[in-house]
């Protein structure tokens, strides 16, 4: 490739864990940098530029200012990649959307609430066109590498649309339900190589739902394994509040 793609990295409302996860590519960081020029990254460098080829964007949109900024990023970039659960689905921030926004403002900011305009936490895709997703909380490193390599090669990344159970079974992990835990793997989108179950933990659903989830069926599974209906939906909403808005019976 003659000119290296110019990459910019941005963050919105989130814990910045996804960006840190990028810096954590100890073995691959130099290989990554060999393919691209990073032209803007607040967490690691100074300065701003006018245009770039690929924008990696972390965090959900939760203030009017966020909306302006993401629109500007979209204008400046050829490809926009949402990075992590907050950017892809709204993430845990989306939980606030299940309550009246004024109540949330009051609780967080108290009497100063009028100084802090706030919106429901939105996925990037609800405001601008998102080309590709790197899911997970924090974003899945192996998926980032796949998406990144695809972009460098000029091919469209494949977004998996099967359950975490598939990856988990391929590794012959003991099913965490066997250990008496509650797991959202059956309706959660794979691509993380069943990271949490592989370490004996249950899946919290951070990568979002598969495209055609049977939510009634999942509710029954969760209730069958000891949750109340309300607890079941709260589990599902942890990372998917936006998608499940109005879906819960």
């Amino acid at each position, binding site marked *: 490739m003659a000119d290296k793609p110019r990459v910019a990295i941005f963050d919105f409302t989130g814990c910045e864990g996804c960006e840190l996860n990028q810096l954590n590519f100890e073995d691959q960081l130099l290989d990554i940098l060999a393919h691209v020029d990073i032209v803007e990254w607040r967490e690691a460098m100074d300065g701003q530029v006018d245009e770039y080829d690929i924008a990696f964007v972390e965090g959900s949109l939760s203030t009017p200012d966020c909306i302006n900024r993401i629109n500007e990023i979209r204008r400046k970039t050829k490809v926009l990649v949402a990075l992590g659960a907050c950017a892809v689905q709204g993430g845990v921030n989306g939980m606030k959307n299940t309550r009246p926004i004024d109540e949330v403002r009051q609780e967080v900011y108290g009497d100063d609430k009028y100084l802090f305009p706030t919106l429901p936490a939105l996925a990037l895709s609800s405001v601008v066109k998102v080309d590709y997703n790197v899911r997970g909380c924090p974003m899945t490193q192996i998926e980032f590498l796949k998406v990144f390599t695809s972009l460098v090669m000029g091919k469209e990344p494949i977004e998996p649309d*099967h359950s975490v159970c598939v990856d988990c079974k391929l590794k*012959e992990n*003991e*099913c965490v339900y*066997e250990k008496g835990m509650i797991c959202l793997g059956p*309706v959660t989108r794979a691509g993380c190589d069943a990271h949490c179950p592989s370490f004996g933990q249950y899946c919290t659903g951070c990568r979002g739902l*598969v495209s055609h989830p*049977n939510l009634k069926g999942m509710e029954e*599974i969760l209730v069958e*394994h000891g949750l109340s209906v309300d607890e079941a939906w709260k589990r599902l909403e942890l990372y998917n509040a936006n998608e499940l808005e109005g879906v819960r019976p």
Partner: protein
Amino acid sequence: MVQFYLEGDRISEFVAHLMKQKPVYAPHRKGQKSFSFEKTENAEDVVLDYVRTMHSIKKYFLPPREELLHFDLTKNESDPVEIPMSEAVFLGVHSYDLAAVGRLDYNFTVGSPEKNYLTRRQNAIFIGVSFEPDKFHFSGSVGIRPEDSTGCDIFLTKLFDGYVLEILTDKGQELMEGLNLPAHDAGKPATGHFHQHIFVPQAKLSEVMEHSYDNPVWEETAGKCVGCGTCNLVCPTCYCFNVEENVDITATKGSRERHWDGCMLREFSEVAGGEVFRETLAARQRHRIFRKFKYISDQTGQPWCVGCGRCTTYCTAGISIVSIVNRLIGDYERAAVAPV
């Protein structure tokens, strides 16, 4: 046939004797409550008295992930991947899992014989072991008894303390050379009873399935099923796979890799352009059950389900293959006697 007595406290010695000759793959404890076939490193870790493993020994002949070729993008060239011959002993195999290997042998030899599978499969030595059916086993209904030694080189039948060891082939005889076990003159104990049954044999099932295409059970099952694919992935006779490219971060080399896939997954029947040919979970459940009791079975006369109970054991939604099949049988028989 010669029978020997393998005393309970000599099992490790027996395993060690095998390990001196060839790699030994056998059931081990895994996690809190599970078992899995593993390469034996310590003879003492082998558990012959196990319920079921999540994956059958299929995983050694058709690995969950397998590289089909390596490529070099800078030269646009590829190399085939060396497939290791498996000179190995598979110890502690239940009869239904060995029956499943027989089914896979058919799938990978019919039409175009597949080098990858057959290379791994060719030199396998099997030591079977009887099992005590738990609440999910139903292999008796598909003609596979716990004491069935078909395909084994050596077979072990559980006694109160230890096993009756039968040598069934020359390969088995060779393996046993140098290990002196006392002869066993008494008979073999009866094995346990199954707690689950499919009520009719395959010949009849084929007819039942023929009339079950529009049975409401598919929709009802689809209400509970979340389409996670687990039932496919733990099935010892499922052999479907997908192929994907892996490219390393330098974007200069990588591999073409296949991995297990399943017809319960929505993506499975999707073609370029987005058309999905088995869109509903009901249609996918029907396809899964018909693949076990109708499609290949009509051609071979054998059920492609071996009654291991894995799909039911590991289904978090509690969907039971036996209940579905018996429901179809019941509905068919009721319809047959119903007045016109």
